[in-house]
């Protein structure tokens, strides 16, 4: 009996090993462990054994049965594993084929740059103000120290609608409007992005419509060094690098002293290239200390308060930052141009 069990165990082991499919394994299980299986029939034949032998053989038979179950289980798992492996092999794909395109448009690069400018100044505590594009002569010129017949009006030929209404030529009118709405409270810290219009023929460097970002700070004791610091901080953030800056005297009717700010060329770092016309410097904005008359017009006592204002062209900044060579691209809306700014 013992021998028979040992043989049976050996035969089963060989068959389990040889099994190549779950079906075969199932047959083996039935053959040995099924209701009419060989182990079962041995256990059934136990009654013919002597009482001494019965527990010994019984325990041995159970041991063999356990062993077979374990082997079958193991074989089952390895067969399933092999099957899965084979299926996965069959399922393999060319991973270099292009992905299914999900639609991705673009934010217009000009608006993208304006958002960057806004975010930098918001980080410095500025609010974003807005003003009308159809402006009164008063806010566009007079309140900014540019009376009718002022020579500086030549600098910007305007689109008038009536003698008193025009398309704003600059975002500066928002300076006085912002001061008025603050009703004498300080600090005033605003920037104003927006569209402006001038009678220029459209060419590679001019468009009759373009954008500006105006900035204004009014508080007690605001100094030109703070204008310089604020603008340098801005420039370093927008161009993402350490820069050198310099101020040059300039003229705007609504600031005094007035400055133009140059930064070290973002293309060549200051060694001289085509973009900076070999000077190492590029002009990025105009600015100055708010003219006392403009402060007064905005309702602020120019003895108690001072301020600075600045104005820059997002087109120019975008052109320098991304190496764009023709301002008209911003208004042609050629998709071959726009798509280049998906990551802006």
């Amino acid at each position, binding site marked *: 009996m013992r021998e028979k069990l040992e043989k049976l165990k050996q035969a089963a082991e060989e068959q389990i090993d040889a099994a190549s499919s779950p079906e075969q394994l199932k047959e083996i299980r039935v053959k040995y462990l099924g209701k009419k299986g060989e182990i079962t029939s041995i256990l059934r034949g136990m009654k013919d054994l002597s009482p001494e032998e019965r527990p010994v053989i019984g325990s041995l038979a159970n041991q063999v049965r356990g062993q077979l179950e374990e082997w079958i289980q193991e074989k089952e798992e390895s067969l399933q594993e092999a099957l899965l492996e084979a299926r996965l092999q069959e399922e393999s794909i060319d991973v270099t*084929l292009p992905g*299914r395109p999900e*639609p*991705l*448009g*673009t*934010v*217009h690069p000009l*608006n993208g740059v304006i*958002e960057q400018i806004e975010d930098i100044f*918001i*980080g*410095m*505590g*500025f*609010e*974003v103000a807005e003003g*009308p594009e*159809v*402006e009164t002569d008063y806010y566009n010129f007079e309140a900014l120290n540019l009376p009718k*017949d002022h*020579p500086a009006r030549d600098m910007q030929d305007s*689109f008038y*609608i*009536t003698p008193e*209404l025009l*398309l704003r030529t600059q975002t500066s009118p928002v300076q006085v409007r912002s001061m008025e709405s603050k009703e004498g409270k*300080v*600090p005033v*810290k605003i920037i104003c992005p927006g569209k402006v219009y001038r009678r220029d023929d459209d060419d590679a460097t001019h468009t*009759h*419509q373009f954008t500006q970002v105006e900035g204004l*700070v009014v*508080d*007690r004791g605001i*100094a*030109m*060094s*703070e204008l*310089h*610091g*604020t603008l*340098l*901080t801005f420039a370093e953030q927008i161009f993402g690098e350490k820069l050198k800056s*310099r*101020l040059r*005297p*300039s*003229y705007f009717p609504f600031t*005094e002293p*007035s*400055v133009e700010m140059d930064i070290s060329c973002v293309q060549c770092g200051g060694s001289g290239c085509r973009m900076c016309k070999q000077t190492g410097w590029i002009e990025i904005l105009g600015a100055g200390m708010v003219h006392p008359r403009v402060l007064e017009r905005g309702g602020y006592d120019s003895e108690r308060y*001072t301020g600075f204002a600045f104005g820059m062209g997002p087109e120019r900044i975008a052109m320098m930052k991304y190496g764009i060579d023709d301002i008209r691209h*911003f*208004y*042609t*809306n*050629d*998709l071959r141009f*726009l798509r280049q700014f998906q990551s802006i």
Partner: protein
Amino acid sequence: MLVSYQWLNQYVDLTGVTPEQLAEELTRGGVEVDSIQPLDQGVKKVVTGHVRKVEPHPDADRLQVCTVDAGQGEPLQIVCGAPNVAEGQMVPVALPGARLPGGVKIKKSKLRGVSSSGMICSAKELGMPDKLLPKEQQEGILTLSEPSDTGEDVKPILGLDDVVLELDLTPNRSDCLSMWGVAYEVAALLDREIHLPETKEETPEGKEKEIEIVLDAEEDCPFYAAQVIEGIRLGPSPRWMQNRLLAAGVRPINNVVDITNYVMLEYGQPLHAFDYSQVDGGEIVVRRAGTGETVTTLDGVTRACNEETLLITDETKPIGIAGVMGGENSEVKDGTTTLLLESAYFAPESIRRTARHLGLRSEASSRFEKGVDPERILPALQRAVELIRQYAGGKVVSRIKSERIGAIDDVTVELRHQRLTGLLGVQVEKESVIDIFRRLRFPTEVGDGVYRVQVPSRRPDISIEVDLIEEVARLYGYDRIPTTLPWGQQSPGALTPEQRLRRVIRHTLRDAGFHEVVNYSLTSPARLNELDSVLQEEARPIRISMPMSDERKVLRTTLLPQLMETAEYNIHRRETGVALFELGRVFISQEKKLSRQPDERWMLAGLVTGAVHPPHWQKGENTPDFFTLKGHLEMMFARIGLGTLTFEAAQPAGYHPGRTAVIKQDGDTIGLIGQIHPKTAAAHDLGDTYGFELELAPIVEKALQQNLRYQTLPKYPDTTRDLALVVDEKIPVADLDRTIRSAGGELLRSVSLFDVFTGEQVGKGKKSVAFSLTYQAADHTLTDDEVNQLHQEVLNRLKAEHDALLRQ
């Protein structure tokens, strides 16, 4: 303003300062130098030569063989083609080995068999600005009238060894519109001495001529001076003066005109010479023009004046437009022997208005417009008289007659030291400030931390304290201003909720595959009329008064037509499809003539046409339709928290009548969405095109009202039942949806449409619509009975309201 380096050097010693260094100093000081132009464009080995003999060329009618003494020992034989070459002339000779502008090299050569050792040059060949030259110098060879030795370098003689700086002056620095003004500036920047010529009045010789001056328009002309010179001889001005005029970009004409121009460049004071014989009664009246009065100016054009035009008249007639251009009748021309020389102050506003009215700008008017220095009116006149006597002969036959109303006030401006350092944010030393005013030649007294600065009349741009602060700052050096950050009260920076929402909307559409465009606000009325807009009723396009073109005539009242234009542009550049949007302002006013600012309203428009995505190797549906666009809009609405918008079929002009809807919010129409009418689309070479346009304000207002609150997650299971209906095909699905929700009440958690079809199975004029309804209660598990009862109620309501039948 073009500034000759050599001329400037006469007033301020520029030793050790190259033109480039000078340009840098000026630019850093606030007078921007646009360009530095050396007049010598590579000219080498061109010398003076004396034409000894001119003989015809044996084999060429147009050529002549010249014998020229160019100081080279032996005379040179030079073949010359210019008809004006003649014996006895002094001419510029390019010797063999010479260089001319443009890299031209002169070699010994043979012309039609005759050898030629060099070339006699024209002005143009030497790189002189031939457009400015008198006609006789433009054609043929240049002749040098001044005596000189042969073999001398011609560059100094023709001023070609000079360098010209081009100043880009800001409107406040009109003081630098003269050599004197630039000299003051340079002397201050370099801290050097200044040497300006002194003048005095020349006293009349012989019988004096009468001049009477009447100022009839005091405000426009408070100061007028004149002097008469008799017996002048017109002719060319000396070469050195012509050289300087050319360097300044002024055309030499004759000695009298050249001298008035020269003094204008020198002093900044425009002068005018009248032919005294044409000044009736020896009387000058400065008055405003009468209605309909005309003047023929010396360019031969008859000009209609208005009541603001300031005229110079004699006893009987106008003889010039003050400060702008002289009259033809009193022009100095051949035969003129007696001059009346004018030097005056004309009010900037007056000249500006007249110049604009007449569309006439001159060197003179541009200076008067900016205000001339009243202190220089008499010296300039004296200087011109002196030069005329010297270079045009004649004698002075009157005293300087001048008429003046009011006096020039001394301007004293106070500057507080503390204000200066406070505003600049830098501790400038008192000594530095005093030194800066010394360099500027502004007499200054100091006391109690205050500088009392006397501002000379040549600097009318300085009138208040900050003007002085700017002067100090620019001479102290802007680059010495440190960088600090505002330290005062801090303020939180942020976008307003509306600004943030506009960004979210734009970014959401970007994420949905739309490209943002920026179009011009100015467009044509025809463009705006292509499509009805949501603001159609209110929109009356605003015209600008002087459009630059028909395409840019009115302010836009809608955005979508320009998006079609942009789509067309891109389709013509081989794009298979485009998806675009724009968020921008339109301009709305009902006024016929604008009396106040229009409403500027933010609009959002989008458009999609053609196959937007490139073909993919896994084929799939690629062509957008109405529902693509509607889906994108609904996603955008969801993103900003709007769920209450409804779409109702509509037939606005320019759209497909069966595929267009108005978008409503709380019953108000706020937008349009639909297929662009095939005819409208075809006009732009577009196939099936879908567009939308929305007014932003109501959406933003609603979105900002939303109160986002968390809702407890359901604790009890839900039950889903489908509902397949057959209804009249005209019934909008939105109506069925509304009925279902109303009947289902609060236990109906969600309704989703999953199938719509028409066909024989459902019968003609009918459609099958299938919804999936999910029921759920917050406080218990719904029983089958409860759900059945609810579902039946929904069906009953659908039957009652829409004649709906359960599909079998």
